[in-house]
């Protein structure tokens, strides 16, 4: 009897909770603005401001004329927008004796970055492919040594490299700086590609072997088409790294080939004459523009590529 009674009770009582549930579903989402949420947003806003305020100051300063800058109102919007500083930065700013602005440096950076990125990614991907699929003798040792390369401080190898390149007769040339970037990109790219290929099913590789594809055909026809996501990650890492490089650029490229970063430094650090803050700001933004654009365009891919290890073909 008792079970029946309790069952009826349940049914009778059941009407009310169900109504409550419906009202909950229709009502506002619970606690949109809890104190925790407010805290999180506050932190995010402060962090964003922390990084955005310098950028804001750079942009507004670069659009002001020198007399206005001398007034010292750092945060004010320019009373009169002037694009002249940008034009000067690009075409007329002086680096030492030459006054051609940043444009030669930009071209140099492009000439350095493009071949370095292509070469280093090509070598890195082949390394990764060979290390994960062709398990030859000593492969692990080689990989270990390569990885060790990622942890060697640059300063340690700079002088030996200078001597080596001088002996080869290519020190202070475009070739020299491209080789340096390619070598220093190898450890991280090899690691990146090796891990990506290690996540692919080994049977894919076996199938290609049964189909008669050798080392290169398997690589170019089977592996490369699958490597798009990881290659985008590699491009971002390399373009950003090489474009922003200053140290190798100033040491290995030679004066006529100095990349944009070195020329920016020379413009900003000119000791003679008036300091043209607006031109300096414009020049700095111009130099930083390329990595910024890369990030904005490919950020989505970047995340995808990082997660690509989980994706099966």
């Amino acid at each position: 009897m008792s079970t029946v009674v309790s069952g009826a009770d349940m049914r009778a009582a059941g009407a009310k909770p169900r109504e409550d549930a419906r009202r909950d579903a229709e009502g506002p989402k619970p606690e949109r603005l809890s104190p925790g949420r407010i805290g999180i947003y506050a932190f995010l806003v402060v962090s964003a401001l922390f990084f955005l305020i310098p950028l804001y100051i750079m942009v507004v300063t670069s659009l002001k004329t020198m007399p206005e800058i001398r007034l010292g109102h750092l945060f004010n919007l320019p009373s009169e927008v002037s694009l002249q500083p940008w034009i000067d930065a690009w075409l007329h700013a002086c680096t030492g004796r030459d006054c051609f602005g940043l444009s030669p440096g930009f071209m140099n950076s492009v000439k350095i970055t493009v071949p370095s990125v292509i070469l280093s990614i090509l070598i890195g991907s082949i390394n990764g492919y060979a290390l994960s699929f062709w398990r030859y003798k000593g492969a692990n040792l080689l990989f270990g040594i390569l990885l060790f390369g990622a942890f060697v401080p640059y300063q340690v190898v700079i002088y030996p490299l200078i001597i080596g390149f001088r002996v080869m007769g290519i020190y202070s040339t475009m070739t020299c700086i491209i080789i340096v970037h390619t070598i220093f990109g190898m450890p991280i790219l090899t690691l990146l590609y090796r891990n990506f290929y290690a996540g692919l099913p080994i049977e894919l590789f076996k199938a290609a072997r049964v189909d008669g594809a050798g080392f290169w055909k398997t690589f170019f026809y089977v592996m490369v088409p699958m490597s798009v996501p990881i290659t985008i990650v590699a491009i971002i890492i390399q373009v950003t790294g090489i474009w922003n490089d200053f140290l190798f650029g100033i040491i290995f490229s030679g004066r006529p080939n100095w990349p944009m970063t070195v020329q920016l430094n020379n413009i900003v650090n000119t000791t003679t004459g008036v300091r043209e803050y607006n031109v300096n700001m414009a020049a700095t933004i111009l130099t930083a523009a390329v990595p910024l654009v890369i990030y904005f365009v490919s950020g989505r891919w970047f995340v995808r590529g990082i997660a690509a290890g989980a994706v099966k073909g």
Partner: protein
Amino acid sequence: MASVSIRKLGVSFGSLSVLRDLDLEVAEGEFIVLLGPSGCGKSTLLNAVAGLLDIDAGQVWIGGKNVTWEEPKDRGIGMVFQSYALYPRMTAEGNLTFGLRVAGVAKDEIARRVVRTAELLQIGPLLKRRPAELSGGQRQRVAIGRALVREAGVFLFDEPLSNLDAKLRTELRVELKKLHMTLGSTMIYVTHDQIEALTLADRVAVMHQGVIQQLAAPKEIYQRPVNRFVAGFVGSPAMNFISGELVVDSAPALRTQDGTTIPLSGYPFAEQSASGRQVVLGVRPEQIHFDAHAQAAAALPLKLTLVEPMGADSLLWGTIGEEQVSVRVGPDETHEHGEKIKVHFQPAAASIFDAKTGERL
């Protein structure tokens, strides 16, 4: 069509020896299934035949030619993998033709083979699709097609149906069998699924710990397993094992630990054994019959502990003495848990193994 001959094969990974001194002869047009639990070396053996791994010792002959040191592509083999291993960025057609294109086969010849293969496997409408746009069964068909277009003499299958769901597996199994009958090619097929092994094979090689335990027709494997491992591995539910002591007086019998005597007269002993030998009796669940009016001598008391109705038949679980046994009965038999019944079996159809070595007596 080609025969395959594996002679004194040895494979090891580092210090771990996976296969040692393994011999296997596969006749032209034969369907051989390598059956065994995970890690028994069956896939390793297949990869060695394919030339996908380095072997330490021995030789592999395909079609009367020593191919031990040949590249996989030169061995005259086609291979199908468990994970399909289709090239994801190529269409189904691209997958089929990749090997031919690499080998530089003429275009019209490639087209002819693709048409023929597509017809054989009914994948014509799928040819323009990428693997991601195919279902599991369709992918595996394309993968089989990729092996077929090579028009090789030997096809190697590495657990090709394991990634498919049960219904598709049954369908493709039947198709594979038909395919073999149509093509008449030599096939070596690796699986851990005994149903696949028993249904597909001309001969089954049951492997365990890198050794072929028994190489025989499926029926022989099932009915006359050469040792306890084969007996226990093949068959579902597994063969019942009852251990005890052999008694050879007027008629042979088995005395279990708790004193139950099981008559064995009629069992074809391969050799004479003395009384007191420790043995294990193996009886398949369907060989045990429920017997209402038992012929007193041969009947065994079975105490039921569980009844499992399985649709086509029912499985009774119970104990004889202290050993757990299962009995397969018709679906209409009604029994209850705890019931005590009498059962009997034909000793001639049973198996008896030595308790120590596990070898068939």
